């Protein structure tokens, strides 16, 4: 990574030279007038979306914002007077929402919502999201909940433990995962690691993080599209089953466990595999690419792929499977 960053810096310097003798002129590009639309981000879970759930997965919390012309530099504030409903395939309202604070670290409060009924969606069932707000067209999105994964296995091998200066202790190790893929369909996944205490509860502070592994001989190195996603910050790393469709894929990834020195060390590592819809995969993958390429002048432009009618963003859904690993003391 360091090398690539260095290369990118060099390349950017090279580009700067091109405009060395250049002059700039403000030009009027006839961009068509833009009608503001709602921008939505919501992930429908198959588990109860309580406060702890959104603390663990803040990026899944319902969020409503809007769009504006590229010529407008006004701050894009979240929309607080939106009405959201989720209906099932029979047209029954199965979930409504109310305004809420943002559960993510550093999140602003504008535009966040939380479910009222804490509905648990069923795999294979169809759902529709509808979002409306004054002065905006109503936005709708549809999905079919993905089927559940079964037979997930995982293990953890500790490499070292250290207590550097500061408040955190670090355990370094490798996680090995065996993920059986259903070959009758195209599947899309997001992989997480969560540290739990002896009551199987996450405290929201301890962090599991994948690290770059220099050992090229590790199992599953050929599946370079498979990586853990960060829990609290950053964009998800979704992956598809194109390279292992219908087979059990086994891979090992290096990981660091960070926990407070003053607290009890985590007891369990829970490996979550979220089976997501194809639209969710496209949205998350393009969003990550968009954010990663922000400062790279050589990258092709990226279109963030949504699935909503008359609006921006996505209505996604996931079906969760997990495997708990007891951590060595």
């Amino acid at each position: 990574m360091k090398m690539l960053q260095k290369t990118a810096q060099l390349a950017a310097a090279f580009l700067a030279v091109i405009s060395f003798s250049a002059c700039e002129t403000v030009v009027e590009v006839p961009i068509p007038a833009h009608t503001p639309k709602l921008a939505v981000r919501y992930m429908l879970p198959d588990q109860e979306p309580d406060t702890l759930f959104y603390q663990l997965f803040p990026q899944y919390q319902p969020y409503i914002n809007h769009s504006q012309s590229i010529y407008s530099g006004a701050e894009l504030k979240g929309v607080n007077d939106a009405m959201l409903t989720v209906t099932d395939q029979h047209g029954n309202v199965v979930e409504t929402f109310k305004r809420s604070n943002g559960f993510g670290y550093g999140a602003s409060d504008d535009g966040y919502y939380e479910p009222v009924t804490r509905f648990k969606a069923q795999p294979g069932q169809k759902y529709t999201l509808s979002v409306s707000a004054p002065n905006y067209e109503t936005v709708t999105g549809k999905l079919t909940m993905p089927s559940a994964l079964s037979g997930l296995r995982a293990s953890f091998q500790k490499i070292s433990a250290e207590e550097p200066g500061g408040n955190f202790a670090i355990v370094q190790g490798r996680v090995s995962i065996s993920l059986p893929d259903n070959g009758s369909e195209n599947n899309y996944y997001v992989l997480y690691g969560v540290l739990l205490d002896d009551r199987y509860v996450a405290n929201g502070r301890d962090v599991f993080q994948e690290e770059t592994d220099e050992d090229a001989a590790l199992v599953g190195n050929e599946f370079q599209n498979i990586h853990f996603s960060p829990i609290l910050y950053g964009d998800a790393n979704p992956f598809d089953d194109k390279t292992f469709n219908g087979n059990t894929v086994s891979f090992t990834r290096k990981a660091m466990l960070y926990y407070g020195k003053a607290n009890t060390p985590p007891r369990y590592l829970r490996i979550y595999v979220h089976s997501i819809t194809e639209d969710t995969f496209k949205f998350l993958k393009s969003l990550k690419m968009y954010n990663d390429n922000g400062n790279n002048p050589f990258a092709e432009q990226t279109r963030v792929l949504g699935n909503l009618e008359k609006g921006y963003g996505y209505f996604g859904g996931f079906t969760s499977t997990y495997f708990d690993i007891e951590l060595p003391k």
Partner: protein
Amino acid sequence: MIPFFTRLHLFRKPGNLLAFACLFLLLSPGAAWAQQAKFTINGFVRDKQTGENLIGVGIFNPKTGQGTTTNNYGFYSITLPQDSISLIVSYLGYERLSFNIFLNRDLEQNFNLTANNELKTVEIVGTKEEKIRESTRMSTISVPIAQIKTLPALFGEVDVLKTLQLLPGVQSGGEGSTGLYVRGGSPDQNLILLDGTPVYNASHLFGFFSVFNADALNNVELIKGGFPARYGGRLSSVLDINMKEGNMKEFQGEASVGIIASKVTLEGPIKEDKASFIVSARRTYIDILARPFMNKENGVFGYYFYDLNGKVNYKISQRDRLYLSAYTGYDKFYGQFDDSELEDKMHVGWGNLTSALRWNRIINNKLFANTHLTYTKYQFDIGNEQTTQFRNDRGELETEKFSLNYFSNIRDFSLKTDFDYTPSTNHYIRFGAQYIKHSFKPGALQIEESNPEPGAANNNFFSQTLGHESGVYVEDDIKITDLLKVNAGLRLAGFYVDKKLYHSLEPRVSARFILNENWSAKASYARTSQFIHLLTNSGIDLPTDLWVPATGKVRPQLADQVALGVTRTLFDEAVEVSIESYYKAMNHLIEYSEGADFLGTTDNNWQDKVTSGEGWSYGTEFFVQKKLGKTTGWVGYTLAWANRKFPELNGGEMYPYKYDRRHDISIVVSHQLKDNITVSGTWVYGTGNAVTLAEARYGIGSYNTIEDIGSRNKFRMAPYHRLDLSLNQTKKKKWGETVNSFSIYNAYNRKNPYFLRLEEGYDTGNGRPTAVFKQISLFPILPSFSKSFKF
């Protein structure tokens, strides 16, 4: 969708079709010549003063209208009935020569032509002296170097490719660019040959100059369509450039001093009329001139490029001749930053190396062979070297070094043999075969550290792919009747890579039909294939573009092009008019996927960064040229469309190609004010390039704002137009002559767009945040002067 294999039953086996083609050529109407008593005259046509072979010289019998032209090595062969004949040897810019003989035996006859110092003009013909109305070839342009040297030039540096960009159907990429975009094709689809050797990147200074030093060149020919079967490997054009051979008679030189570059060319006999040489060198000195004005505390930057050309040739015998030629050129941008602890050097460089060994052999008076062994390499590299000095815990001075070099290259070894066979004046048959070994390193990373971190090591990361390309062809220029002439040919091309064999059977045909004394109609069809791709950034063209092969996953590019046209001459052939329409369909084109870039391409993962699609281009080209008189020049206009469709780009919808240019106009005028003063001017206009711009932005989370880029290439930059002027004054000296060249680039200071960028800020009136698009323009009005010396 273009089918990869023809479905005609007869043609299922490529060998059958090739055999059929040979049979057709031999049984065609002109084959009747074989039954009459005829004799052959063959030889070379050369410049009397320099001994240089002349390409495309017309040799014809005015009594019968039968004739031929010299090939790329000045060789001709003409077979005529036993009779008293009077041959005319004619070449623009040279005095006509008449040769009378009673032909009753085979004869070897060389002709030496005397230059008449008249300005030669651009010829929109198959060969230079073959009349536009009579040639079967269409979409072909020959540009005399003398013409190029009279036209206005950026910074006084005359440029071959810039002259070609002034012709219909040929577009520049943008401000100052030497990239050629021929009939909606991309730059990688041009086969650029320097002495028969491919040149992969023909640009210097980020595309503002070409690598071809006009002083070292002899002939330039561009083919935009109706490709003869002897050319293969690219979809859109062939640019065939021949270097001078070197004066066989006497030593001579040419030098010039300009604002940013100087050059020198020396040539002469090694042994008179037996062997000669030519060497040429050019270097820019912006870096040297700017250095005294730089503040070293802010870092030192520099840029230069150089070209070196060399060629020797040796007549082994009357029938054999060897040519050895080489070219190398390199661009380097560098920077250095120093402080007390850190020395940081970086560079970006790119360049070509080509070399060719050719052997001409006259096998008999009707059969000429050329065997060609070539090597070519193109590489770009980005490097960084850091030296850090610090004191360790013991107070000792320590030095750490880190260097990183990223490069990408393509190398070719090629062996080719071509035969020219002229059994009669009704047939000109060419056939041959070629093998190319391609070696690709799309990306390689070299890292060295004096004190690597634990677990890390000095490393090289790269992958290499080998591709084996081959081709065989046969073509014949057949005079079927006095009115109808056809060039028919067939090429069979193959490419072996990743244990997969691709092959392509490519019929080529072009025909001319004389409608009346002034008008002729022409038509052509050509299928072409290309086994290599250029991965380019869709924003700005850069030397960092990657050359990659077709692979098991990425298929070869294919194209079918048809063209129809009419030509006529006016005012006793002083003016020529041509109108051509074309339609080109391209398949298996590749582009970077959305979000992808070249960085980090150190193995074959580039295949995962690309997506494949189709392209179409069509249009009509109008060309009016005045060739004779004190005022010469042309007006060209192209009305064209170029579109692309990729399932994974733009939501699968068709979109305009970046260089889709609806209107393209060029006006070129050159006027001889006095015997020693020529003034010239060019004006160009082109529809603005297509660009993708963000139309809106939206929030998708706290502090996460997304720009909505609309449809790909939906918007247009401002139109491009520019006027250039020049004046050339020649002064005779005892030792030779000098030429003073004054030129003004962009005479009315048009701010032409290079690219657009969005800048966010605050409205100075009301303090509200706002955003504007800013257009980056490169060159304002640029007067320049250069002085040339010929001795």
